[in-house]
């Protein structure tokens, strides 16, 4: 097995789908966040893979820069998201997203 771009992309697709799975089928609000973080990590993997396999060599490591900023933003997102989970838990006494349906039509 030779590591090609396609294999990296397939692995990142798998990670993305697992993240989607976590976000879609778990009832605990934290898992939606975990799923989103996984999807972001999959995107990061894609960035790095595309950067590594790109035929043109840019003077700046563009893919790496993308990932660094994504990580920073994902960290901010996780902090705020988890704070929201705590705030929601305080208010509704649950983190089960099935029960958090105040916005239903």
């Amino acid at each position, binding site marked *: 097995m030779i590591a090609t771009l396609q294999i990296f992309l397939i692995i990142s697709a798998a990670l993305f789908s697992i993240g*989607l799975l976590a*976000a*879609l089928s778990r009832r605990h609000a934290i898992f939606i966040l975990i799923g989103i973080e996984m999807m972001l990590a999959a995107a990061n993997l894609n960035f790095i893979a595309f950067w590594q396999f790109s035929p043109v060599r840019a003077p700046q490591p563009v893919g790496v820069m993308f990932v660094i900023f994504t990580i920073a933003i994902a960290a901010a997102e996780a902090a705020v998201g988890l704070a929201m989970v705590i705030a929601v838990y305080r208010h509704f006494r649950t983190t089960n*997203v099935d029960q958090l*349906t*105040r916005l239903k039509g």
Partner: protein
Amino acid sequence: MTDWITRNVWLVPATPIVAALLILGFGKHARRAATGVAILGQIAALIVSTCAFVPTLHSHEFRAFENFTWFTFGEQSLRIGFVLDPLAAAMMVMITLVGLCIFVFSLGYMADDKNFSRFFAYLSFFSGAMLGVVVANSLLLLFVFWELVGLASYLLIGFWIERPSAAAAAKKAFITTRIGDMGFFLGILWLYHQSGTLLFYDGGHGCLENVALLGASSTFIALLIFCGAAGKSGQFPLHVWLPDAMEGPTPVSALIHAATMVAAGVFLVARVYPIFSAGAVNGVTSSLIVVVWIGVVTGLMAALIAVAQSDIKRILAYSTVSQLGLMMVSLGVGGVAAGIMHLLAHGFFKALLFLGAGSVIHGLHHEQDIRKMGGLRKLMPVTFATYAVGMLALSGVPFFFSGGWTKEEVLHATSHWPSSHVPYFLLLLGVVLTALYMTRQVMYVFFGSSRAGSDHHAHESPSVMTVPLIILALCAIGLSIFLTPAWPWLESYLLGHEAHIDAHLLLQPMILVSLVLVGAGIGLGFWLYRRAGEVDPLQQKVPAVYRFLENKMWIDEIYEHTILALAAFASRVSDWMDRYIWDGLVRVIGGIGQIFGALTKGADEGVINAGVDETTVGARGVGRAMSRLHSGQIQIYLGVIALGMLALFLFYAWLT
């Protein structure tokens, strides 16, 4: 020195803004420091702008600009800059001088206010933002300062936030001008699309230097920019916020109406005048025609409304609207210099009038109804004298008062407009009306005997308030030296010509006309209101007309019943659609099924009954399923998004 100032003209707006930040930093209790910093900042700005004014005197067609790159995105770079030319220099001096007088006046007027230092911070900020508008050399930078002016006006109009009316007025001013700004912003985008630059002057590459490139779109760009100008300068139909802005403290009204906010619109039109006049035939373009007619309608309408108002500040507010209309007409017919001259002169005497009104209000303990005033001539002699100067200047009495000369210039320019003569005659009517309502106001406030007995406490204001009045009055008179047709120095300065002395021009038929008209207006006013009581004489004679005017031609009400009603109606319609159509559709299906069931029940109860029941149940099920789509469950929404992605994949598969 001169070289240095032309490169660093940004200092002029920076000084008051820095002062504002400093004051905010000092905190609420540093009242003395706040006033000190504010006034020092204003004095510094005045000195710097005077220094900047000097080099523009020496050479004709003087124009210095300093551009730099703000940021680069991709291959585009956004450049902004500052410009110094006669237009900017004259405006700067006027704004800082008038602003300084207003600041000093505010010392006395606002002395008892608990948010004294905040007031001065806002005031400094306001003045700095307006100076920024004046010196900006890029439409984008101008727009930034433009919005800062809007923000400052919002803060200041709503300064007494505890009054609901003030809060509402601030909101109204903000939203109304925002409607115009929307158009302005679209105009900016369009201009950028067409010309690729937003710099006014860039050594031959600026957008004002290559207006021919714009082609046919220049008309639309000009009209969109005019939307913004109309919003800020209170032109019909966006003038409604300006009278309401009287809810702010009187010095704020003075600043808004004289030097800063409303002047911005007129200034903007003058600044981008090449866009308006691009491709002009005989000095007339379709965009300029719009400007003229909007100006005429505004001027006449506001003058008519002013005749029937009873609030001292509202009368002045409508007079501002009317004068702005006059300026717009002047710009539209090609008299740019005349319009700007009127703007400058108006800045001085309108500030004088507002501060005089402020002095009266202060003396009468915040009484604003002119029908309850009277006989203040003896009680407040300084205020009266200076107010009379302002009133004569606004009415347009020629020879001695700056307003007379500039108004005469405007009329002169209008009379030569090749497109139509109607604006000219309407403006003449406006002159009469202006003289009439100003006379009415002075008669009510200063002559006769006291009404309603609220004035026995009246007292002359302290010198901190009267000295600015005197200075402004002297300016209003003194400026006329530079304005006479015999030696039109200011006009030549603005146009970049050499000024010539020609004493013959002092006496021309036009002056006679305006003298007669002004005399008629003043005389009519004197005669009508010589012994006016609590009830307005006009109200007794023609009550219907008076009521029509008193209620500002019901424009606010018209807006409320058309535009706002339309918005409310639209929201009600969508609410109703939600409630009945979608839900109702389901019920109708169910209902049809039920009717059908009822019809067949008697005929074939045993056979069809079950089927009909199924239909209705099914229909109800559809309804329930549809409402279940809005379950409020985030995961289902997310899943739908993922399914959408899948659908895109399928679509892609189908394509390839």
